[in-house]
């Protein structure tokens, strides 16, 4: 900007003076910010040297960086060179040669999708009955396995009161995720016994797999009125009195029930493995 004549001189001087004042103010602000940062650095080092404190470390650590951050932005705002707006020509538009992007055609999509599906089917055939699939079909429960608590103690018929509930395991596989079960003692006669399961719930005891049939989370919450097991992950609920039927929420399948009987020694034992795979579903899950 060129100022013409001496009428402009005074103007120009005023502009310069304002400019000068602005810079001085900015400089003070920058110095204050950096000073604060330095103080914060001392504070941070002191805190670290004297045993540490997460809150103070964060506060001082952040302030150490905040000072220079503030200084940089303040400097660019007052500096005419740094704050001016510039212009750049764009590169000329690309010429036609490579302009046509490879957009997938309908035929390409069909062929690709078909190939993917074929690969999937082939994978399905090859993995049929694989070890991974077998592992999902069974747990560690066998006929006659004693039920034990998480501490490993066996459970006799007198151990639980009516309304009681606890997590149980096969005695030889405590902690095995796929074998965990919930054991509940109900008042006798309240359970609506499913056909074929007449002798699975002696003395009001009933046991269900603890793995939610939705996503396999442990069904850990017991609500007494109405009697449901609730999964804390996605709030699927299962009716304890009605064979573990899925009541509400996203699960669409009942909790598998573990057959129980009372051994000659008075301890609760499993009558066999769960009648179907536990936990979330999969492609070749046997359907009941």
């Amino acid at each position: 900007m060129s100022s013409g004549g001496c009428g402009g001189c005074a103007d120009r001087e005023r502009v310069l003076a304002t400019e000068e004042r602005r810079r001085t103010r900015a400089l003070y602000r920058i110095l204050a910010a950096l000073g604060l940062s330095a103080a914060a650095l001392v504070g941070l080092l002191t805190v670290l040297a004297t045993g540490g404190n997460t809150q103070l470390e964060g506060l001082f650590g952040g302030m150490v960086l905040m000072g220079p951050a503030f200084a940089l932005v303040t400097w660019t705002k007052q500096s005419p060179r740094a704050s001016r707006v510039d212009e750049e020509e764009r590169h000329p538009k690309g010429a036609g040669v490579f302009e046509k992007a490879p957009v997938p055609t309908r035929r390409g999509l069909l062929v690709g999708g078909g190939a993917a599906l074929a690969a999937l089917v082939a994978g399905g055939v090859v993995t049929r009955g694989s070890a991974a699939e077998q592992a999902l079909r069974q747990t560690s429960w066998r006929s006659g396995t004693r039920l034990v608590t998480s501490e490993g103690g066996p459970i006799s018929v007198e151990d639980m009161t009516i309304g009681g509930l606890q997590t149980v395991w096969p005695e030889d596989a405590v902690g095995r995720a796929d074998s965990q079960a919930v054991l509940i003692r109900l008042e006798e006669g309240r359970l609506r016994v499913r056909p074929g399961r007449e002798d699975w719930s002696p003395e009001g005891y009933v046991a269900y797999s603890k793995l939610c049939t939705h996503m396999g989370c442990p069904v850990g919450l017991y609500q007494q009125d109405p009697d449901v097991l609730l999964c804390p992950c996605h709030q699927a609920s299962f009716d304890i009195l009605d064979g573990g039927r899925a009541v509400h929420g996203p699960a669409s399948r009942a909790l598998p029930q573990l057959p129980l009987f009372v051994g000659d020694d008075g301890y609760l034992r499993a009558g066999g493995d769960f009648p179907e795979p536990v936990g979330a579903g999969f492609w070749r899950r046997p359907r009941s």
Partner: protein
Amino acid sequence: MMEKLVRWIEERGRTAPYVKNLIGKIFPRHWSFLLGEIALYSFLFLVASGIFLLFHYTPESARSAYEGSFEPMQGTQVSGSFHSVMDLSFDVRGGLLVRQAHHWAALIFTAAITLHAARVFFTGSFRRPRHLNWVTGVALLMLALANGFFGLSLTDDLLSGTGLRIAYTFAQSVPMIGPDLASLVFAGEFPSAGLLERMYWLHILFVPVAIAGLLGGHLFLVFRRTHTQFGGKNQHEGNVVGDTMWPGYVFKTTGLLLFVAATALFMGGLVQINPVWIYGPYDPAAVTVPAQPDWYLWFVEGALRVFPQVSMTAFDYEIPTPFVSGLTLPLLFFAALLAWPWIEQRITGDRRHHHLAQRPRDVPVRTTFGVVVIAHLTVLTLAGSHDVQGYVLDVGVDTMTNVYRVLLVAVPVLAGAITWWSCQALREDDEIELAATGQLSDPPPGADSVHRDEGDDADKDEGGRGDDAEPESAEVGSVSGRSE
């Protein structure tokens, strides 16, 4: 000294033309252009803080008794991973701060990418010739979400174990090959020994390197094809107007880098996140209540919760519902996001190059569509904690599920209608004003006037404005572009 060094490098690298080009680069001024930079800087912070964490974290599934300084947990059987995270939190000086700051930075990272993507979407900045920027950007978003989940899972506490269990079930739900896929990816039937060890390498090496590489490509493309900008008096298809790389932009953006890092440190120091000592070590027979992952996964969590209670079969085989609600729907969303530039191109038939960002109101169809999708995702996100909301509101969780099933349809329809109506109303206002005054009082944002080097137009393309020798006082007269 500096000059000598520059000469030394120049003699060997012949870098001067590139550097000159670089320091003359122009960055448009608009607050929404900062979002991508915030994402970049939180990534840098994640790398820096991650290197510190590397020195203290051990990936180890094997269990032993905890013996650190957190008294209540003494003697509990915990994995080596959990043990090292406890030590990091209680016995390494500054360890808890860095761990929490790292976690907060990851949340800022994902949030910044999401907002950046929304900005690019609603302003049409993905249109030709920037398709590749969009594709790399969406890929970066997906990688960021994946690595966030890996990081969340490495601590091996009760919450992260539950998250892994859900990820495993997703793999298991895939038709035909599910059980074997799950076993392959998760090193056996869940919970398997060796999973943490494998995920560790994904989290600290493979995914970060992929992010760094894509990020490099993303930035390279921005440099090659220049920034978009909103149109204005001096801003048109043929130019870019804004701060020059040197000195203005470098100083501002370094300030921003430090602001981002400072924010992560403040949050890490003052706001507790992922307190693993409260959750306890992973136990396959227990779950935390409440159980929510990081914010960016809530939409999947919500989808799992409100999906209807149905059983699906194909030829008498089972298709578990999580395959649809948790796997297919999010993947379809990302596929649609990736393909959007081509979808829009197909609809509008517009294959021209565009360098000016659009105002959302000027493209009501796209804007409405975007708002409908975002509204849907937002409702799903909120549904991800509907048990907690029900508890606070004293409403049964089953009722909450039904309420959200309704909201999932109602809110997007309503939001879409409001958006459509707003776009039309804003455009009418513009037209009335334009007809009356010949110009808009609230023009599209951007600087109003441009600095030009006097009598030196030839210099423009070479980015010659950055010459350091120029004394600053000589420029006082050209304070012209201040719009803030």
